[in-house]
């Protein structure tokens, strides 16, 4: 595979926060690159900084130092609105706690990013996506009327709806039982494959991690690539 141009390029990225006179290092200097269509797993103990990293990569937060290039955009130089614009075009996000809008129906949740992007075919596209995640029979249900697995499908449909280049998933199966976890994982990988998306997924599940092209391990704010290590062990 030819990977000459990374879709995500991270240069000596750090994040520190101040809490009560104390400097807290959440992320030590980190450098890596991710190429189009790759699938990347980030593993690590709880509190090691995985979500913090994902938040930075998706431009939800701004770094303390270092550079983040996402699809040739210099995220680290952008203000919040410009980052939002990048997210609207290039980034999808799936969270552990689904993060659906409680007062919008399943189909309306999926339409949301399309509407924000002023897409003319929002309704049709959303209909198509809800079909793809297998919920075409329940478009008008509110999130609280859906099971956890169903909610996460809606979230996945919403994440893919704008056809992002990059998809971040922060422990997408963390709140689900085993059967549902399996279904969601399969769906995620399948859609990723079909849409030529790059997938960055945070997980505790080693089996899931092994399905990915690359594996990063996070430990107290320090990230190391352990793809070879993990894969040879098994």
């Amino acid at each position, binding site marked *: 595979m030819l990977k000459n141009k990374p879709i995500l390029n991270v240069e000596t990225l750090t994040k520190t926060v101040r809490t009560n006179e104390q400097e807290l290092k959440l992320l030590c200097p980190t450098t890596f690159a991710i190429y189009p269509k790759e699938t990347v797993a980030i593993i690590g103990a709880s509190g090691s900084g995985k979500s913090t990293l994902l938040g930075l990569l998706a431009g*939800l937060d701004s770094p303390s130092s270092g550079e983040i290039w996402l699809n040739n955009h210099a995220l680290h130089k952008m203000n919040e*609105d410009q980052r*939002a*614009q990048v*997210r609207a075009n290039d980034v999808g996000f799936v969270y552990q706690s689904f993060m659906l809008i409680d007062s919008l129906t399943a189909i309306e949740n999926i339409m*949301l*990013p399309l509407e924000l992007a002023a897409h003319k075919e929002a309704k049709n596209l959303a209909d198509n996506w809800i079909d793809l995640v297998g919920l075409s029979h329940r478009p008008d249900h509110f999130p609280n009327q859906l099971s956890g697995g169903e909610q996460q499908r809606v979230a996945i449909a*919403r994440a893919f709806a704008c056809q992002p280049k990059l998809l971040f998933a922060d422990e997408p199966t963390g709140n689900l039982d085993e059967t549902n976890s399996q279904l969601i994982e399969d769906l995620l990988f399948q859609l990723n494959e079909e849409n030529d998306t790059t997938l960055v997924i945070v997980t505790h599940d080693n089996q899931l991690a092994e399905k990915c092209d690359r594996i990063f391990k996070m430990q107290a704010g320090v990230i190391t690539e352990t793809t070879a290590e993990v894969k040879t062990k098994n």
Partner: protein
Amino acid sequence: MLFNLSYRLLKHELKRNELTIMLIAIILAVASVYSLSSFSQKMQDAINVKSSEFLAADGVLSSGKPINERLMPPTELGLQTADQIRFSSMVFFNDEMMLATVKAVDNAYPLKGTIFTQLDPFGHNVKTNVKLSPGEVWLSAKFFQTLSVALGDSVEIGDAIFKVTAILGSTPDQGFSPFTTGAQVLIHIDDVPSTQVIQPGSRIHYRSSFTGSPEKMTQYEEWLLPQLSDDLHRWKTINDESTPVGNSIKKASRYFLIASLISVLLAAAAVGVAATQYAERHFDMVAIFKTIGATKKQIIEVFTLHLSLLILVGVSVGLGVGYIIEWGVFEFIKAKLPVELQIQTISYKALYLAAFTGITCAGAFSIVPMLKLFNASPLRVIRRDMLSVSSYTILAYIVSVLSIFMLMYLFSQSLMISSILFVGSLAAVALLLAMARFGIWLSRKASKDRHSALKLAIARLYVNARSSSLQLISLTIAVQLFLLVLVLRGDLIGQWQNQLKEGTPNYFIVNVPHHQKTVFETSFSENNIEVTDLYPIIRGRLIAVNNEVLFDEVSKEKPKKADENRRESIGRELNLTTHQQIPYMNTLVEGEWWTKSTTDSQVSIEEKLAKRMKIKLGDELKFMITGSEINVKVTSIRKVKWESMTPNFFMIFSDDVLADFNASYIASFHLPTDRAADLNQLMMQFPTSSLIDINQILAQMKQIAGQASMAIEFIFVLVLIAGVLVIQAQIQASMATRKQEVMVLRILGASSHFISRSIAFEFMFLGALAGLLAAITMEIILAGVQILVFKMQWSPHFEFIILSPIACALILGIFGQLACSRVLLRSVKTQASTL
């Protein structure tokens, strides 16, 4: 278009009851403003109609000289006018005569109100629409009794002869003065020249009455007043406090205004609390929007639209509800209303005012929460505790607060009233902020080794000191304003009821001669009529103060230079009396009332006269009474309620002073109207005395007080609803933030009993504190309002310092418990679904 998105969000959220409190708050604000201003306008109109009947017009210009044509209202104002001439004259019949107060009226008389006639002397009063024609005279019952005139006879007044065509019962503008000298007579104004009574030097009283729409009357008044001269003209309107009802009307409308303002304030506070909750409810939503790529501009667009739509719904529903409330209230009280009210008409002024209030309230109070909302960080999706900060908070707070003040001013049109309430509330907020912190801190100290649920409650208050004190403030303000309305309502209605209670004297008898005093007393008591307020009356002139002889303007002596500071005499004779106790409706301002058997020749003087004459306690006054001089010492100064329906005096002596004089007597008594015929018999024995029937005036006053009381009860209920809504909004808001905590506590194994008890304790504690602070701060505002606005005396209400905390603790405890059990129920469900 993002409009669709906003609309969809709103539609779903409304259906899912997520915006109910905010919506109800707006609806209440709008509905109460609409119904209040429309209701008060219509009520005021009705009361004005009633009270204009006391003047027989909306305004009266009177003078001792014929009123100049150029003072008459310009024809383009379209006012109706009626002219009247009053004078005293003898009425002759056969060879007898009797002094009369003659009222010469034109065909337009009366512009307002009705004339009552009687079918036989001392019979019932009957309304009449018959106009008096030239050549006719209507005589009051007294003449029929004293002169033995009969209907159809001819009597002489001055040089003219009149035919008696009716027994005069009462005229709307007869007023109330127990000192009037003669009985009333009505003749036509065209007959005045032929009587020849108007001679140089004779005392004639000219009156021109006007009526028209309030705006036109005001226009005329503004044009007229600068042209009047103080010693020649008097201008009187229904708003004058000196009329029997004027004072009640003024007080009622001021109360109405204050209470309306308070209900607006409360509704605004409810909107404020709800708006904060509205923003909090949407923080996560905004965060999610932002992660999906929404820019701030889009967020602002979506949520401004969303809020605007919500306000639009609230305002429209509010107007509808306001109209229904108004209609319902009218339906309910229709039967009791003596006047037709224009119920069907929609008051556009009220409509605009209400819509404007709703928009301003919701808008102004949403600025701060909305700014925070727009700034919600997308990071919230990863870290739930991310707070939102806004850089313009202070400015936004100022804008909110100022717009509330503007609203208050717009509503009351009175800078003073809005300022008192506004500054009072602001000061209360500042005071409360400090006290709340201190109180919460203190109680934490005190609760160290108490029951653990209580301890948890107080610990929670302490941890959330900032939001707790905000809660405390809004609760306190709500309770405080409610108490204010409650106290004022009690004071006003109590005052009226006191003035007009059953058994209030409805007749006065005047000119009972000295030698008939005992006969009078025994014959009345034999007839089971209780005589009250028996006063001896003798006329006299004040001639010196501290041996300084008063300079008499009438004598036209030119005062010498050195004499310019000399006191002027009062210029007329006064009605003097004696009394053992301080008369009912009088209050002592300075000095002390004498003991029953004093022999020190004391006098009590009316406050304003004392001021005008520069008379102080301890001064020696010299009076000239029927040719002899008497000396008395000023030992007290009184405030007199001139509008009360009792004889009022400038000077009251101790009993010993007039002992040697032959005074005549005045007395009042209550007689049920169905016994009026008995009076005829009784009065036969007192041919020189006259009777003044004030049943008509009392009935009118009762109607007016009744209407005003009803209006006051109505607004009281509205304020009550607004207050409850604030409390409910506050509890809901704090419950929303508490859901998480409740869930954690449950997971940690706390029993729901323990949780709900600790929350109930927390609310009870908050309620008690709010109730106490409210009772204290209410007194401060109350003092301001009563002294500055109502010009009443202020006395503290200690009972509220105890009652208010107890009541508030109970109410909040119950409300909190209810809200809490709902949250608990839901948390059990959520837990079940996540596990």
